[in-house]
């Protein structure tokens, strides 16, 4: 029996060594260790032996079985490894061989800039308000202390619509009507910015478009002063343009604010040292601002003795151009994907 066992072991090891596929390994395993396998037969024959012999042969059977199983496992792993290498090799990709790039979408530069501005103002405690782009004369001018035939109307070249009475309906030349609507719709305190599209009767050139975008801000609260305006714009300036950029206010005139001011920032290109962009002044004009005029508060039924406020506004498009060094406003509106895809 022992001889037989040794023979089975020798043959099995030899055949496992010759097995050239996982299937071949499996059939060897079945022939040796399966229900009708050689080793199984010997195991079945153990019962007919004397107890002593049965024990010693039994131990040998187990030894042989362990040896064969180890050989099977080793051979399997070896074959699997070869297979895996072949498989992986067959799957090799040249990852630099890319056909057809994925399409990437781009937000419009004005939207990117507007979102960034909104985020800064939200951080400063402002909500964002919106309103219609077609407006009445009252919301665009009358309520803003610009009665009909006020000379200051010349400050805006307004586009009017054939709608209602002559010159009663217009494309808003600024986002200020939203300030009036906000004050009408909600009681103070008000801390809100009004971004949006505005219209002027301007022929398109490098720095003008008949359609462009503004953001205005409005604060109405008790005890609001010019110092609060200056501080808020300073905080916005450093938050949006960076800590090294500062702001200044210069006297100006707007019908809807008093005192009124021009809002300048130190030149973001030369940081105030003077360069071509800032005409060697070290400053860039950004927009206008001031304390809300008592007549404007009165137009929405607020008592100027009780409530005070400030407002400010500037263009979004120009900030978009400045950030990326684009020198022609018209580029924003050609909708040429070769331009859009750069941002």
């Amino acid at each position, binding site marked *: 029996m022992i001889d037989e066992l040794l023979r089975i072991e020798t043959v099995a090891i030899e055949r496992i060594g010759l097995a050239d596929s996982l299937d071949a390994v499996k059939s060897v395993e079945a022939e040796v260790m399966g229900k009708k396998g050689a080793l199984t037969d010997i195991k079945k024959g153990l019962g007919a032996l004397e107890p002593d012999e049965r024990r010693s042969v039994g131990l040998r059977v187990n030894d042989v079985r362990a040896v064969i199983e180890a050989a099977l496992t080793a051979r399997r792993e070896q074959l699997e490894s070869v297979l895996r290498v072949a498989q992986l090799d067959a799957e090799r990709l040249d990852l630099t061989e890319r056909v057809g790039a994925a399409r*990437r979408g781009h937000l419009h530069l004005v939207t990117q800039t507007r979102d960034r501005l909104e985020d800064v103002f939200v951080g400063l405690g*402002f909500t*964002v308000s919106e309103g219609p782009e077609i407006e009445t004369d009252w919301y665009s001018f009358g309520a803003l202390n610009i009665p009909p035939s006020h000379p200051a109307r010349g400050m805006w070249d307004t586009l*009017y619509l054939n709608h209602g009475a002559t010159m009663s309906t217009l494309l808003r030349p600024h986002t200020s009507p939203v300030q009036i609507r906000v004050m009408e719709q909600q009681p103070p305190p008000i801390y809100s910015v009004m971004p949006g599209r505005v219209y002027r009767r301007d022929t398109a050139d490098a720095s003008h478009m008949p359609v462009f975008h503004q953001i205005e801000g409005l604060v109405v609260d008790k005890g609001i002063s010019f110092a609060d305006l200056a501080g808020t714009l300073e905080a916005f300036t450093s938050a949006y343009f960076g800590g090294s950029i500062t702001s200044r206010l*210069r*006297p100006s005139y707007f019908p809807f604010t008093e005192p009124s001011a021009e809002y300048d920032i130190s030149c973001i290109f030369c940081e105030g040292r003077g360069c071509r962009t800032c005409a060697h002044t070290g400053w860039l004009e950004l927009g206008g601002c001031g304390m809300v005029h008592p007549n404007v508060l009165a137009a929405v039924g607020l008592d100027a003795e009780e409530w005070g406020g400030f407002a400010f506004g500037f263009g979004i498009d120009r900030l978009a151009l400045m950030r990326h060094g684009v020198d022609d406003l018209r580029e924003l509106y050609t909708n040429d994907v070769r331009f859009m895809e750069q941002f």
Partner: protein
Amino acid sequence: MKVLLSWLREFAPFDGDPVALGDQMSDLGMAVESIEHLGAGLDGIVVAEVLALSPHPNADKIQLVDVDLGDGESLQICCGAFNMAVGDLVPLATLGTVMPGGMKIERRKLRGEWSNGMLCSSKELGLGDDHAGIFVLPESLREQRGAEFRAAMGIELDVLYDLEINPNRPDAMSVAGVARDLAARMGVPFTQIAPSVKASSGTDLDGRVSVNIVDPDLCGRFLVSVLDGVRVGQSPQWLANRLTHLGMRPINSIVDISNYVMLELGQPNHTYDLHKVPNGELRVRWAREGEPIRTLDGADRALRSTDGVIANNADEAIGIAGVMGGASTEISDTTQSVLLEMAWWKPMAIAVSSAQLGLRSEASMRFERGADPEICELAALRFAELLTRVTEEAGADPVTLAKGTVDVRGDLSSREAIAVRTPRVSALLGAPFTGERIRELLEPIGFTFDGAGDGADVVQQVRIPTFRFDTATETDVIEEIARHHGYARIPKRMPAGVHVGKLDDRQIARRRVRQVLVGLGISEAMPMPFLAPDDLERAGLSDTPSLTLSNPLAAEESVLRTSLRPGLLKAVAYNQSHRNEGVALFEIGKVWRNEPSPTEPSLPVEREVLGLVVAGADAFEAARVLDLLLRDLGVVAPLVEQRLVAGLHPTRSATVALEVDGSPLPVDVAVFGEVDPRVLEAFGVAGRVACLEIDLDTLLSNPRGGPAYTAVSRYPSSDTDLAFEVADAVPASAVDATIRSAAGDLLVRLELFDVYRGEGVAIGARSLAYRLRLQAADRTLADTDINGTRAAVIGAVADGLGAKLRS
């Protein structure tokens, strides 16, 4: 408004760096747009006479010019200009001169000929724009050959400031006003001019001139003087120079002095030839509708009742009040007596009149801001003084100023003192002010205070100077206080208190929509919202009533869009024509229809919509984007119905409706499909264009909130595939809905994974293959569950839609 430093210095002793002075003007709200240093860079330029001109032997575009510097020596210059003749006087940059541009003049050879300097154009000298030819100097300089050009020309070193004056600064529309403001800031005394002219020398004005202000609401004051013995001539150089620098063209001595007085004192004035005014009689009144007048510029105009006129004794208009004089009384070479008008017109009247007539003049600009009614006498005397001086300088017989004036007043509202509360000043500006400080700031610019005022007053009564028509309220005065205190000295701080900033739900959702689209590879475009009159028709969208502009820049931009589609199609066509194929663009913007808005009937309907086009893609691309967007926004069960949509492909278009709060019927929220090929052709677009349009007002105004949580089942799921042969007339959405309804709650996922037409399927039908995933939340599904559901689905689809299960 331009001002010369030398002129400002006639009112106050300004010294120091001219640039620093300019900074102070800017800080006072008179923004310096440019500073020009006049006469700088003229060192080394001398007056030369052209002795001879001869061709350059080796060059066509250069000639040889022999000049004489007054010493009889001939000097050869090579010159590229040909506009001068022998005997002309010209400016020569001598050797060693550094030109304003930085170029140094040296002796050098040009094509073999020596050039000993450079002849200059007016532009090269910074004195004009003419670059084409050499600046040929006046004959009067002949005896000054060889002299310094600057001295010979009487050019003084000076500084010219170009200031931007705000509408609320009528005072700063004059040299004197700018000087007053600046003197206050610099802490130097301001002295108004005091003309020394002997009016008594002339004849009495009584009886020669009369003025009747018929309409006192038009004219606040009308003051007339008469100058006799006038000889109209050329202005002296100094006067002409000043006018030229300030942007006015010298014409003749009378016109020039009139302009000089206006620029200096801010009082526009008008001169009449007295002999052309019968009886010297003037009537001031509103014009009659259609009243004719020929103005100084020779134009015949028809006036309106909102224009003001000065009429003669026949009541014929001889001038438009505050805007432009009439031709009939114009000063000419033969004028001997000048009637001089100094008036104060109601600012709004002049604003309306000049706008209506399209005549904006230096005079109307000043009158509409509000001139100083109390400067009329001073201005008249200044006029007389200047005319006297000019006449003397010309060596002519003296001019005489008739004794007295005719001075008539209309409506001039008396100006009350304004109560200025010191605490209010401090509160509005956010910095502490005292009564004394307020006085200190306001008095130098002409404001006066009632009562002694010990400076501790809480309320001060402030009188406004007559040259500040703009200032009428306490806030106006506070602005003046802030201006002269200096904005930069007001502290910067943030408003106190807690206020929360955030975007609202709709704004967040709109950003989300943009981000999803960008993630899908679609870029945001911004076409102009203006369309050409036929764009909507070309887009098949002429059924929607559109709005038109009443004053468009161009006809092609005269219609407001009712849809984003035409603009997006133009963008696609533009890109295709620049070989940018396969563009995918979206826009979020407003569209309008010419119907009253239900919420605000004085305005038209305005809606915010999303438009999207993908070139080279079919309708399914639009459907995919739509599905993804709606799912992202939490929209469940949109009702898609394939039907005709204006401007879209008739057999490839559909509408989407949603159940909306407060509406009994589903509300249309989107259309999608492909653009009609006929429309594409009209817009010059090649290939298919997938198109999607969503009404964001409806979609984003109905926030769905976050969907409620459903526990993920821990039990195994089972998939069943079912393919039905369905008639083409039955939309897949109907099959989908039938399956969902029949399968009930066990159906956790339904996917249409194959559509097949061809062999084995009847003509006019297609096979739709669905994979159903069934799963229960509370148990492992039994075979009976699966088989029961399967049977129910097959039965429902067969019975309800006449579809046949394929095996």
